[in-house]
């Protein structure tokens, strides 16, 4: 898409344009942190009880499922892909939990995660081996997954009473909710994978130029398959955690529209949709930013509708900054 670049306004004095591209480049690379910082600052001044431990805990617990899904989405988008099926995979995981809870929480969770992996493998196989475009490949499961989840659950919301499983949603270690801990560990794990492993390098290479990666002898297909499997498993984790927190399995509602929030977090965080870059920390900041905007608006009695409009403007601003900075280079 980059062929039709916005015509640059001639050869300007280089010092000025260099400075401008510095600013643009800085904004592109760090805009999300700047925005997050400003928002935190504004909240500290304007919102009562913002700096309390209870508020911090609520914010983090609320953002956890989106963040976990967004981690997988970051890797997928890094390969120039997209995964629309994450919400449906969450619903599948949620529907499976009450069915297998008879075996105990451990096996039930394991089965949910395995189904998440299988769903990811299905997406990944379509993308990597059949060559279907990611948006369509994952659209199929987006449509079918929730239907399947509803069939499994008989279309019903099921209360869960297993103490062991529910403690996942309520227990705390040293005052930190387990959900937040899990999200934190997953962030570190994905960060490590993206930065320090060959696989992480492969993701960036494949996203940057699949043909060149193939010619360079990289396992392109396996890399693609793997990112979708990771995304599926992480979506299943998010589904399990959301179910534990809700104390009920609700396959019709869990994870609705989460793909949009996750994509927003990733894009706002600075990972380019055109692939070839993975910014895990940016995604974390993006998810926090979206969450914080939502809660700030709610706390200050701004209606839900306006917060949606603001989120939309934010997305446009984020990609426009990316685009401008890209053109300025």
């Amino acid at each position: 898409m980059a062929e039709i670049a916005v015509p640059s306004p001639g050869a300007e004095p280089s010092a000025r344009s260099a400075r401008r591209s510095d600013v643009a480049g800085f904004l592109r690379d760090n805009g999300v942190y700047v925005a997050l910082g400003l928002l935190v600052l504004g909240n500290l001044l304007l919102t009562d009880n913002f700096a309390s431990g209870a508020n911090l805990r609520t914010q983090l617990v609320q953002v956890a499922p989106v963040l976990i899904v967004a981690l997988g989405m970051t890797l997928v988008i890094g390969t120039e892909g997209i995964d629309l099926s994450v919400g449906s995979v969450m619903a599948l995981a949620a529907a499976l939990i009450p069915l297998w809870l008879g075996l105990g929480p451990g096996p039930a969770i394991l089965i949910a995660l395995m189904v998440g992996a299988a769903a990811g493998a299905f997406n990944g196989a379509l993308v990597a081996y059949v060559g279907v475009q990611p948006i369509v490949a994952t659209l199929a499961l987006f449509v079918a997954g929730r239907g399947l989840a509803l069939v499994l659950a008989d279309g019903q919301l099921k209360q869960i009473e297993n103490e062991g499983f529910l403690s996942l949603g309520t227990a705390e270690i040293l005052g930190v909710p387990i959900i937040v801990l899990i999200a934190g560990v997953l962030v570190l794990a994905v960060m490590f994978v993206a930065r320090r492993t060959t696989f992480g390098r492969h993701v960036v290479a494949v996203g940057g130029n699949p043909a060149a990666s193939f010619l360079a002898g990289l396992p392109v297909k396996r890399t693609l398959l793997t990112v979708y499997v990771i995304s599926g498993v992480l979506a299943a984790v998010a589904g399990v955690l959301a179910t534990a927190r809700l104390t009920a399995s609700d396959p019709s509602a869990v994870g609705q529209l989460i793909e949009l929030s996750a994509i927003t977090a990733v894009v706002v965080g600075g990972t380019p949709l055109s692939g070839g870059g993975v910014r895990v920390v940016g995604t974390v900041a993006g998810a926090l930013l979206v969450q914080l905007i939502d809660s700030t608006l709610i706390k200050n009695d701004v209606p839900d509708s306006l917060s949606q409009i603001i989120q939309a403007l934010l997305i446009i601003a984020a990609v426009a900054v990316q685009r401008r900075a890209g053109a300025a280079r």
Partner: protein
Amino acid sequence: MSSTVDAAPAATHDAGRGERFARLAQRNGALIVLVLVCVVGAVSFESFATGENLRNIAVQNAFLALVACGMTLVILTGGIDLSVGSVLALGGVLGAIGSEAGLIGAIGLPLVVCGAIGLLQGLLVGKLGLAPFIVTLAGLLGVRGLVLTLTDEGADTPTIERGSPFRSLGQDELLGLQLPVWIALVVFAVAGVVLLRTRFGQSLFAVGGSESASQLMGLNVTRTKVLVYVISAVLAGLAGALLAARSSSGVPTVGMGLELDAIAAVVIGGTLLAGGAGSLTGTLAGVLLLGVIQNLINQVGDLNSSYQSVVSGAFLAVVVVVQTYLSRKQRL
């Protein structure tokens, strides 16, 4: 110029039999499957092939058909429009509000406002070069927010007065078919002529096939791109207004997930998501196929309605696999 219409730019005359079959199957696959499914349906269920049931299928899918028509044009240029579901809801709400000023207000208000939204999205895509997926994703969120703002956070459902001519536009019949069905058919016919017989229509294929080549050939790529998003939004708004007329009110929550149904119908109809190749007849067949599958699952009765999405999703997966295989065969 006419070669850009072909699904594959490969030379046609020395195309092998396999390739010709592949192209035929890709172009008319949805139609063939639609006929098969209808035959199976007619044999299996007495109540399927009745005029009443077929009329129901037609009117239930007229709105999706309008949206999918615009979506086809957008996808032909290599873009995508995720905002159509929200724009449809906006069209409905505005139609109901505008109906207080008579028929002109009821139709004009949604078309103008939705067209403006399409123009904005088109400019962001065409002029600024932002990714269509992201721009229209923002549109999906923002326009739904706008709808909620207009309706007191969704609590308020503007209704259309009894006896208003706008209502009859959604509910009256002509020659046995309801008016929305006729409107959808006319829109498809006009769009088909525009696509195949005008400069603008041909430029859609060219831009979708190769944007940089179109630019070099002197086509106005930006204008083409902006226009398809305007058309898509106007058609979504029209569909919303007609839906509101049919249900006598502008419901703020309609159209959620509609963009994905429309994309599914377009893809099933044989239009390549990469752009540059596809057809409106395929899209129409795709829309009807999804509608007939839904209808048949309802006919089974004791099946859980959730099966419908399972079947649609599985169907979509099969279709895209076959399509990818067929289009690859043509390229070789």
